[in-house]
């Protein structure tokens, strides 16, 4: 009877709800500990698998490529999962709606700084570019400030920073962050000063933008769930690019002669940086796919500034995003946007080459 059906499942549970929650937390903690331990052993495992188990000769092209691949893939994926989870939890506090609230009506300069900073913490998908743009400008966020946000959001994200940190160390990651913020800040500032409002498609200004009611009160368990959802979402969609990117990187690492890249991407060539920026514009990749390639290029003698300029150009100036933005921006404004950001990236590239 129905009464039995309702009580029977409860009787079958061996743990009470709070105990089950503690068991889940303990398992999660053990899982994290095991993953961390594995992380420290990865290089040794990769070398073992390639040379001892696989029988490849040390110093061979294939051996170098395979060991690189077997080391980098689990390393990057583990790192990515950890950081995406943490940032996913943090993001439940910083939403585009809150960013808009914080930026509406701000003056230039301080608004540009805040926009660039908020862009880091805010998730960004190219398809969001249009609603985001319209939502911001119609809510009273100045045009230049909106642009600072639009540059910062795709370019400086936790995926890029994690990968840079994991592959090149904290100094490079920190420099990327600092210069990326500068490019976002300055390009937004300059664009704002040019008073290009008339180059925004007129229909945008006529839109009445409602403000959505966002649930700011979330339980912590929901935020953890957000973190896990972020991992499933981001790592789930990006892992193949990471593997492919590392495969390409492994090929370059193993088979391309050292210093091959130095001939046209090295420090000595003055046109290396502009070429890299130009190459990056029509290409689009997310950070996950391009950074392993970047690492391999660096290993073959390409200069750090040139390579970083290439990376920024690929991510920040994406042709698909420009096409999407054409719905709301006139060609003049798009050209100004691309030009100013490209100029900023050029400066970053030359600076890195000169300093590093």
């Amino acid at each position: 009877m129905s009464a039995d059906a309702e009580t029977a499942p409860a009787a079958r549970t061996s743990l009470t709800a709070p105990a089950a929650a503690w068991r889940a937390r303990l398992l999660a903690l053990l899982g994290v500990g095991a993953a961390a331990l594995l992380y420290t052993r990865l290089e040794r495992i990769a070398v073992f698998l390639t040379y001892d188990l696989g029988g490849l000769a040390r110093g061979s092209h294939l051996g170098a490529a395979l060991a690189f691949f077997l080391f980098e893939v689990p390393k990057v994926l583990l790192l990515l999962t950890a950081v995406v989870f943490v940032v996913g939890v943090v993001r439940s506090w910083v939403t585009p709606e809150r960013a808009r609230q914080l930026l509406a009506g701000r003056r230039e300069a301080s608004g540009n700084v805040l926009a660039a900073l908020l862009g880091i913490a805010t998730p960004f998908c190219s398809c969001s570019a249009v609603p985001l743009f319209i939502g911001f400008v119609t809510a009273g966020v100045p045009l230049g400030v909106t642009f600072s946000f639009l540059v910062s959001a795709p370019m400086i994200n936790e995926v890029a920073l994690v990968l840079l940190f994991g592959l090149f160390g904290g100094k490079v990651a920190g420099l990327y962050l600092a210069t990326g913020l500068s490019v976002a800040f300055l390009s937004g500032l300059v664009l704002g000063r040019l008073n290009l409002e008339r180059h925004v498609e007129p229909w945008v200004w006529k839109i009445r933008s409602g403000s959505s009611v966002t649930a700011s009160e979330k339980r912590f368990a929901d935020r953890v769930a957000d973190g896990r959802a972020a991992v499933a979402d981001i790592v789930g969609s990006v892992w193949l690019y990471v593997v492919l990117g590392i495969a390409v990187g492994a090929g370059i690492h193993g088979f391309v002669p050292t210093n091959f890249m130095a001939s046209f991407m090295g420090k000595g060539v003055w046109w290396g940086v502009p070429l890299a920026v130009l190459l990056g514009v029509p290409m689009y990749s997310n950070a996950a796919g391009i950074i392993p390639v970047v690492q391999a290029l660096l290993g073959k003698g390409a200069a750090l500034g040139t390579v970083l300029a290439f990376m920024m150009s690929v991510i920040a100036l994406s042709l698909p995003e420009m096409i999407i933005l054409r719905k709301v921006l006139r060609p003049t404004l798009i050209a100004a946007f691309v030009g100013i950001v490209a100029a900023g990236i050029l400066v970053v590239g030359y600076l890195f080459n000169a300093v590093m």
Partner: protein
Amino acid sequence: MSERRRIEVLGPGCTRCKETFRVVQSVVEQAGVDADVVKQESIERMMELGLLSTPGIAIDGKIVFSGRIPRVEDVRQALGLT
């Protein structure tokens, strides 16, 4: 008798938006919720509702979820099923 609810899945048509639509549809079907599920690609409608990051889900004209592909639990929670 309760009114048939109107669920809009908002997004310009990228893969994430399509996936969101699929998730919402399957939850509605499985739970037997009395609702119309429509795909909404109009920017004007997104702005009207105040949606900033796609994909988004609106029930009867109110945004209940946005920013990423929802899991089944997210949709169930938004529908008031859990």
